[in-house]
């Protein structure tokens, strides 16, 4: 009995908790205009041009009983000086209270991101209560206002869902890096590594794609049919809060593979067959654990040794070489791939050392381990030391399976 009484009291107590929400700060869905994404461009008169992508909550919801004739989104652009004051200014046009509550994407044009002043606007986001640190940062080739206007997803017409899906999927397939406000601020504040942002565009660019594989940016993937023009591919490079370059899809993947701060997702890649160069082998690579990075410091030049274990599933065999059956061939293939990976990675590392003069792999975290205290670490100066470092990468591949059906017929026998 006593126990029961106690239980009832507890339940009442927990129910009472709900009332702690209060109603002074209540917000009604009907009376709010929910901004799903904001676009930032360089302004002509004021310092910024802001674009709001406002979602229509009535659109596409089944519970409402039938759809409305209203469009799914409303888009408005105007000039402003910061991210907070437009909340009221926009009400000259928008009838409802503007809310950042569901804002999950900040879209910035390349041009603005390359400005020295860019970081100033970014810190506005830490001031406003409703902007969250897990907001995605997307950088576009064209103006953000144009990007938002041109982006017309065909099936995921609700803007909030579209951005959520395409970015999550892009990260899961390693087409784009995981680029949130939190990472931008953290990496910029640590002042040691490079931050990678999501690169996207609606503008198509004609390039010669033969033999390029994954060495392309957003807008360079040729597509036909009836679909959205927008592409999310590749990444933008930020040093000290300012954009300094771009990476292709392949380089983005390499940075993810070599990164110590996070595990990279499984990737689908392709490379030429070592025996018959005209055919390409498709493969799925999985990172078993984060790369082992070892830093050796001598006075003068430091040395970085990276050991990267990769699990690889071979998915196609156009050369009909039957790698699964032959140990000898498998070993050769392994050597070839390891070599190719090491070479590609080394090339990229050298590029970061020479072009960016900093690393996007988070290796400074390894360096931190080598010091007992922060002042010593600061004296070492990771960012200044990195370009001179002697980097050595070794890849170790273990094969998984060779497709669902691993054996292939002998081509000569099929065609006799």
């Amino acid at each position, binding site marked *: 009995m006593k126990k029961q009484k106690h239980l009832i009291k507890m339940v009442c107590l927990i129910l009472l908790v709900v009332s702690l929400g*209060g109603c002074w700060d209540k917000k009604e869905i009907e009376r709010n205009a929910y901004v799903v994404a904001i676009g930032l461009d360089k302004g002509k008169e004021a310092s910024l041009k802001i674009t709001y992508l406002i979602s229509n909550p009535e659109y596409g919801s089944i519970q409402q009983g039938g759809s409305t004739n209203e469009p799914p989104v409303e888009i408005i652009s105007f000039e402003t000086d910061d991210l907070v004051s437009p909340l009221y200014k926009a009400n000259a046009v928008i009838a409802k209270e503007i809310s950042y509550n569901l804002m999950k994407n900040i879209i910035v044009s390349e041009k603005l991101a390359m400005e020295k002043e860019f970081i100033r606007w970014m810190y506005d986001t830490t001031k406003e209560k409703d902007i969250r640190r897990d907001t995605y940062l997307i950088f576009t080739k064209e103006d953000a206002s144009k990007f938002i206007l041109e982006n017309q997803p065909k099936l995921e017409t609700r803007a909030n869902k579209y951005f959520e899906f395409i970015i999550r999927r892009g990260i899961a397939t390693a087409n784009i890096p995981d680029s949130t406000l939190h990472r931008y601020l953290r990496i910029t504040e640590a002042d040691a590594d490079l931050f990678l942002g999501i690169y996207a565009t609606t503008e198509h660019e004609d390039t010669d794609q033969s033999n390029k594989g994954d060495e392309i940016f957003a807008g360079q993937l040729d597509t036909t049919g009836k679909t959205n023009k927008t592409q999310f591919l590749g990444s933008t490079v930020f040093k000290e809060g300012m954009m300094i370059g771009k990476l292709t899809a392949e380089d983005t993947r390499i940075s993810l593979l070599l990164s110590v701060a996070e595990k990279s997702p499984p990737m689908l890649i392709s490379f030429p067959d070592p025996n018959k160069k005209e055919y390409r082998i498709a493969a799925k690579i999985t990172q078993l654990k984060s790369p082992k990075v070892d830093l050796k410091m001598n006075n003068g030049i430091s040395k970085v040794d990276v050991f990267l274990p990769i699990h690889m599933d071979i998915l196609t065999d156009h050369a009909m070489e039957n790698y699964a059956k032959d140990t000898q061939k498998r070993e050769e293939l392994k050597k070839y791939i390891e070599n190719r990976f090491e070479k590609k990675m080394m090339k990229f590392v050298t590029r970061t050392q020479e072009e960016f003069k900093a690393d996007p792999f988070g290796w400074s975290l390894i360096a931190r381990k080598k010091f007992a205290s922060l002042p010593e670490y600061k004296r070492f100066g990771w960012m200044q030391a990195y370009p001179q470092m002697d980097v050595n990468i070794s890849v170790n591949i273990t094969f998984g399976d060779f497709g669902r059906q691993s054996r292939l017929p002998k081509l000569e026998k099929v065609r006799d």
Partner: protein
Amino acid sequence: MEDSKGKIGIKEFIAIIILTIGTKLTDDTTVILYKQMENAAWMSPFVICAFSILPIFLLIKVMNIYENKNLADVINQLFGRFFGFFTVMILWFLLFSALTIDSAVYTDIISTMYFEKTPVIMIYGLLMLVSAFGAKKGIEHIGSVAWSVIFWIKLSLLAALILTFMQGEILFLFPIFGNGAWEVVKESSLRTSLNAEFLYLGLIFPYLKNKKDYKKGTWIALAIITTELSFSLAAFIMLFDHKGIQLMDFPFHETIRYIEIGFLENIETFFFPFWLIASFIRFAFYLYLTAILFGSLFSIRNFEHLLPIIATLVVFLGIIPENPTFTIFKLRESLLFITTPIFIILPFLLWAAAKLKGEFKNEKAKASD
């Protein structure tokens, strides 16, 4: 049952201590630690714990001589009327300042992180109203409420910490000694008053059912608080790194805003109510202690009646500072520095006075009778 009325057992005692001191990890106390020790701040609770062991040990020794006297009575007995009055006065003043400053910080947290439009005076008023109501009910009620909710509050904290550890990066804890090992020891020792509430626990000594619980409960609570604080400090660094965390005003609240459970995002509203209840209990207990001290200063027997006045005074003092986040941060830091020597020296003085007066012998004689 009659003689246990208005008294608390060891469970309630520990629950009160944990909620009063443990809740500090959710406010800007953590930033005070990060500011000097950066990513080694997680070590400081252990150093602070080590520095508080001796004062707490001496205090327990002294308190145990007397059966039914609280700290204020003991001070008066040992230091004499004149010095006793001043010591208790200082203690009261420190506690009252801590109450005002802390409640102002909590109001600031609520109004900047959760309820932006609600007027500050309403939040502050409600916070103190609920706490004063709780305090008025007496120590027994504070204790039983603390005990009945502590499990849920700590469960929610544990959930938040586990999620943070999962999403955090262990490498951010390096370089292991932050600004240097010596710096950690030095800066932590200056902030030992983080545990100063243990001194004030002597005030509720007469309300314990079993006097042995005082000793046992204090040590258990100290161990729990130290571990909890250290783990939380480490968790916040693992999420934000040592630079970002120093820029933040309230790391705990930024953390619960950032973490997510799988597909569930924006889960801070799940943690918020638990934190609120913990804060209510914390301030109810503070108010109660302030009232006891004030009562014994001016020999007011029914000190409970002072509570509404004290609570009102706190609200009006607390809303004075302009730009609370920074002003109060400064005030709180100075208060920590001022309290530290008192927290360390006072128990020693008490013990020395008791030794000189031969109080320990008296007790032994009493025991052998």
